[in-house]
């Protein structure tokens, strides 16, 4: 059995070089949630030449919209959503320096190529394991687009968040 790799975020070029498709890894550090509406807004800002509310350079985006947090808890259920819906918005984000993405399911051929071009990585997390994955989140803070509610951008600090490498440079 291959060893499960531990990776500390933000991702470095060295981290990406050490990975192969199919590898299991445990991520620790900061990730930002963003799903459909947040992607649409980020890309609109880029198109207008405006500054983004978060600096994406070397960062990792998690396609996720968590449930509400119960009092005294860090986060609610927080599994991945389908990544292909984000394909149309991914290239401009990679261009601004986005390095990692976490979601579920396949990416388009175009995005698979872009991931190579920008030396990035796409991981899958386990779909439908939101309660389990909530135990891997240590901190939650709202980072942008609060008005989007569950679709807002949250800054999460995760510890040993399990993923599998799906597409790579």
């Amino acid at each position, binding site marked *: 059995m291959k060893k499960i790799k531990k990776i500390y975020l933000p991702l470095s070029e060295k981290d990406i070089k050490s990975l192969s498709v199919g590898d299991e890894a445990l991520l620790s550090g900061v990730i930002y949630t963003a799903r459909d509406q947040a992607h649409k807004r980020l890309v609109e800002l880029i198109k207008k030449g405006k500054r983004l509310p978060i600096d994406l350079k070397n960062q990792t985006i998690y396609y996720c919209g968590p449930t509400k947090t119960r009092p005294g808890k860090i986060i*609610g259920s927080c599994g991945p959503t389908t990544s292909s819906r984000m394909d149309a918005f991914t290239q401009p984000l990679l261009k601004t320096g986005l390095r990692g993405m976490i979601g579920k399911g396949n990416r388009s051929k175009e995005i698979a190529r872009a991931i190579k071009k920008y030396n990035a990585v796409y991981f899958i997390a386990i779909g439908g394991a*939101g309660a389990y994955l909530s135990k891997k989140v240590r901190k939650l803070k709202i980072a942008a687009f609060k008005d989007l509610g569950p679709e807002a951008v949250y800054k999460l600090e995760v510890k040993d968040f399990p993923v599998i490498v799906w597409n790579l440079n």
Partner: protein
Amino acid sequence: MRNISVKKIKQAVSGLCIDANTNLRKDVFSALTKAVRAERAGKARRIFEILIENARIAKKERLAICQDTGIVCVYLEIGQEARLAGGSLEKAVNDGVRLGYKKGYFRNSIADPLTRKNTGNNAPAVIHTKIVKGDKVRITVVPKGFGCENKNQIKMFMPTADLAEIKKFIIDVVKQAGPDACPPYTIGVGIGGTFEKAAELSKEALLRKVTSHKSQVTSQVAKLEKKLLKEINSLNIGPSGVGGKTTALGVNILTYPTHIAGLPVAVSIGCHAMRFATKIV
């Protein structure tokens, strides 16, 4: 006539929303435990172990099994001897959804289709009613996630189409869902009726036990279900799409007589966390 207060319906819907979202169906849970035993080692096995652990955590902590707590489909089987009193039934159902989603700390996922503005309380539900015998109301709450809902398909076949064509279509729908919609899937198929009847049947089929239910269907349908399950499981999509012996937990088919000129076939994909809860009021 038996009077049933719509307040009772509201309370029942609220409780069912919480139960369905936090307590994985027994038949699905046992199908997962069966699937984990089929995988000797590796990623597929580890993922199944996590899915089982996930269901346990959700139940224990009243956390949503999946963060996509869905669009709520409510099935009301209303006994024709029952009289629903004390206000609007539709409002009672939607109030129940609002209450349940607030109490459960679930995600509000419902938005206007064009402005995309979130309704902020996960209402309204999609309500299906059926008039049945008796004086009771059977309420079934199905929180349907959209990762899998997006993969559903319907096709209007020629009446002369053979079983092989229908089978190919169903398998192609699963192939197209691929790893995206949280496999292993539960597959619901509706054959016959009209465009909307086939779609409704395919959804209702997801509410059947994922394991065998031979007594409820004809032997031809049971045989087709078995064959489809075998072929779908040979697709090697597996849990999360990593490959494995289990791509579907079960296939259920419901049929209805149709017109001599056509043959509608609808396929509904359910994820491995196919949820619902039922109560009789």
